[in-house]
């Protein structure tokens, strides 16, 4: 237990020397990974008290069970890579108050770890709030920008709204168990109504943090404006703490959940996935695009989670464990590739000083390694074999299709629809990253900034490289992660999923209802074999004489970089087809005109509006209008009216005071 506390808190002590702090953070994260894996494999689950508080029943107990350890591994993996990246990033991007940055950064990671290990409602809420507030500080780190302030404010509001719902759920649990300790909440039997409220409050409260479909508005505003390494942590691991609590509540605390709980989670998940990816497609701000992809991936995780809940209801524990494996695997994968992508976006942002994809172009020649890592991340998020995203999405598909085994008509009807929504999501994601790679990394530089770009320094590349190699590693050998998740399924569902899903080494297979087996290593090898054969054939038979000429551009004589395919051009067909959904505004806007009649400089503007955001704006506007109206009516500046209020209030209180005696 001492190891755990030391490794978690040690980096904070070094905040005065940011570089040292990042190095120590990396080392202690690695030690935490080793520590967790050892405990996970040995099924050695520690419980200890961090410190006793003065309030009875509100101590700070830590319990490292399988689920917690899995999330500690996820958090530590990402924080190790991101910390290495930060060694250069902090100085190259030149944020001021570097010590403050290092302090918030290290404390944020420690709070993340304590959130997933706390085993008491009060201490959980304390660490949860520390985590939220610190991430808010990082969102407004460049507080002089209007965008940061706005994003930060929305984030702060939404996260506290979420915490309010979480607190409500905790209070309900406390009222029914008489304790704040999570140990007393395990498989608590509640009345149906209470159970429903707990389910709903947990869904809304943690869903807000996760960026679930109708309450996601803060995510595309807050994540893009934070420093890129923090975006990576927020998108990669912070929103996963919500998934952690979903699993805790729905599989560990609640008992005998009805079927439609899982169905609701499934519906919300599929909507989040589709909605997130469609808006991502329309973005041309790189970090905003990635933030929308986070919504999509949370949706996919929730789809896995929802089908696991359905199986859990039907007492098909093996299948439930399989679906849970899909969800948790995707959680880990998304953490890896989303952090990788955000770090890549941070590198391009550092060198080009813009987030606008339309101003990139040709970065592959200037930043070859960054491009390579970004490409690996893109392939993973697009769920193409043999990378890790493919494995977890395949598992999610399978678990969705296996939902057919549940004897409820509604589920049987909707399962194919959900599966096809997931398929559509995958297609859109692939299209989206074709756009990102094609427009920003290929072609020719579209602005002065991207012309001057150069490769980032070693530690930044190293950080990204770790994550990229993890993408490949987990893609080729998914059994590693399955082995890690297996103790979780043992704990929650009493099923050793590793013995079903990876019974044959290097294969992953669906349990007993044999839908299929798959081996990503085999896929990769056959892919390489085909490539090799093709190469040999080309070498043997084709004309191998090469000539280097400029790309043929339809007979255009003068080269114009703006004639390249642009991001808004790429997504235009989708915008047109789904116009009802995007509510797009397109057109040419006059920017400046030097001479009176000729050659006005024009920009092509294409914007889309997030329908949900519009809804939020309508609601807030209505509230403000009503308040204004009431303010004018009630507080109208007349002393007589104020006196009347006092007068009426005193009469009302008199009546209230004696009403009991009537």
């Amino acid at each position: 237990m001492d190891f755990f506390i030391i490794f978690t808190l040690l980096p904070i002590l070094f905040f005065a020397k940011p570089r040292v702090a990042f190095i120590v953070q990396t080392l202690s994260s690695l030690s935490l990974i080793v520590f967790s894996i050892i405990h996970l494999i040995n099924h050695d689950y520690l419980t200890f008290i961090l410190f006793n508080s003065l309030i009875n029943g509100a101590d700070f107990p830590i319990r490292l069970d399988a689920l917690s350890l899995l999330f500690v591994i996820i958090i530590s993996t990402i924080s190790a890579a991101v910390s290495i990246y930060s060694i250069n990033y902090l100085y190259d991007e030149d944020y001021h108050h570097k010590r403050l940055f290092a302090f918030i950064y290290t404390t944020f990671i420690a709070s993340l770890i304590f959130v997933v290990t706390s085993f008491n409602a009060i201490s959980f809420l304390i660490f949860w709030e520390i985590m939220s507030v610190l991430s808010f500080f990082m969102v407004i780190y460049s507080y002089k920008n209007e965008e940061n302030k706005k994003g930060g404010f929305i984030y702060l509001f939404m996260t506290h709204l979420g915490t309010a719902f979480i607190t409500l759920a905790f209070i309900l649990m406390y009222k029914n168990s008489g304790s704040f300790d999570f140990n007393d909440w395990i498989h608590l039997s509640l009345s149906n109504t209470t159970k429903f409220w707990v389910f709903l409050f947990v869904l809304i409260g943690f869903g807000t943090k996760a960026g679930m479909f109708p309450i996601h508005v803060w995510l595309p505003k807050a994540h893009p404006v934070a420093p890129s390494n923090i975006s990576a942590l927020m998108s990669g691991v912070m929103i996963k703490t919500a998934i952690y609590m979903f699993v805790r509540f729905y599989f560990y605390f609640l008992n005998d959940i009805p079927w439609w709980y899982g169905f609701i989670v499934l519906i919300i998940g599929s909507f989040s996935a589709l909605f997130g990816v469609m808006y991502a497609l329309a973005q041309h701000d790189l970090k905003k695009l990635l933030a929308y992809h986070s919504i999509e991936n949370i949706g996919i995780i929730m789809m896995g989670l929802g089908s696991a809940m359905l199986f859990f209801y039907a007492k098909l524990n093996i299948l439930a464990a399989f679906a849970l494996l899909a969800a948790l695997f995707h959680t880990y994968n998304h953490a890896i590739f989303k952090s990788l992508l955000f770090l890549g976006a941070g590198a391009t942002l550092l060198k080009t000083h813009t987030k606008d994809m339309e101003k990139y172009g040709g970065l592959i020649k200037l930043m070859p390694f960054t491009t390579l890592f970004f490409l690996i991340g893109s392939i993973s998020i697009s769920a193409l074999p043999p990378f890790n995203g493919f494995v977890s999405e395949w598992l999610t598909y399978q678990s969705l299709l296996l939902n057919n085994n549940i004897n409820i008509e509604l589920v049987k009807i909707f399962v194919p629809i959900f599966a096809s929504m997931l398929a559509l999501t995958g297609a859109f994601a692939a299209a989206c990253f074709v756009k990102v790679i094609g427009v920003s990394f290929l072609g020719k530089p579209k602005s002065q900034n991207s012309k001057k770009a150069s490769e980032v320094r070693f530690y930044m590349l190293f950080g990204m490289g770790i994550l990229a190699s993890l993408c490949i590693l987990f893609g080729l050998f998914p059994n590693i992660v399955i082995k890690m998740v297996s103790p979780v399924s043992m704990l929650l569902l009493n099923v050793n999923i590793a013995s079903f899903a990876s019974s044959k080494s290097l294969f992953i297979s669906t349990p007993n209802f044999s839908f299929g087996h798959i081996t990503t290593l085999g896929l990769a090898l056959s892919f390489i074999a085909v490539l090799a054969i093709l190469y040999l054939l080309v070498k043997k038979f084709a004309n191998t004489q090469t000539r280097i000429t400029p790309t043929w551009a339809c007979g255009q004589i003068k080269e114009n970089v703006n004639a390249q395919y642009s991001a808004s051009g790429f997504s235009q067909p989708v915008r047109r087809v789904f116009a009802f959904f995007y509510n797009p505004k397109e057109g040419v806007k006059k920017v400046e005109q030097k001479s009176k009649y000729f050659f006005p400089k024009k920009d092509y503007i294409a914007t889309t509006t997030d329908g949900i955001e519009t809804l939020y704006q309508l609601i807030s506007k209505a509230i403000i209008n009503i308040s204004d109206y009431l303010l004018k009516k009630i507080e109208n500046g007349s002393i007589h009216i104020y006196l009347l209020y006092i007068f009426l209030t005193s009469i009302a209180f008199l009546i209230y005071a004696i009403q009991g005696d009537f």
Partner: protein
Amino acid sequence: MFSDFIELIGAFVLVLAILQISSDRLFFSVKVYALQSFFVALSIFVIGLYSSSNDLYISAFLTLLIKVIIIPFTLFEAIKEMKIKREIETYINITNSLMIISSIIIISFILTRYIDLGGEIISKKIFPISLSIIFVGAFIMVSRKKPITQLIGFLTLENGIMLAATSVTYGMPLIVEIGIFFDVIVGATMATIIIHHINETVDDIDERTVENFEE
């Protein structure tokens, strides 16, 4: 016998408060106030006789001095100096005011039936009367436009409190009562001075003008 007599005096005070509502002359209002204060002083004096407490004699004397002589005198001076052209202006006309106030009095009588006063009680019936007077004072403050009439409403309200305090129990400790007297006299003086100054600057003594300053 004592309690009946005190009740009678209380009734006079209430009637004068109602008369205050129906008055449409400033001078008349001040005179009504002075008379009302006289009855309050009388009630304090009678209670003093009954309980043979020296404090209450002092209290009665101070009431007589301050509320019957000094404050009305100051108000008269203020009214003369301000040269008010129009007399009392109301938001609610006098007939409706009387209707409302009678219902308020009924309500206060109903309400106080259920209040357990406890302790040594000289006259239990005086409590609803004084509560009604407090409400009448508050009503005057709400419904009258001119600050000077609002001041009179406040003084009426204060009389009601005084009546309740002395007749339900044996009054408050002397030091508290002297404090209250001091507050009232300072309040009245301040109000007249401020009203006077507002009158000088804006030349129209009306709360509605003050409203414009607020924003």
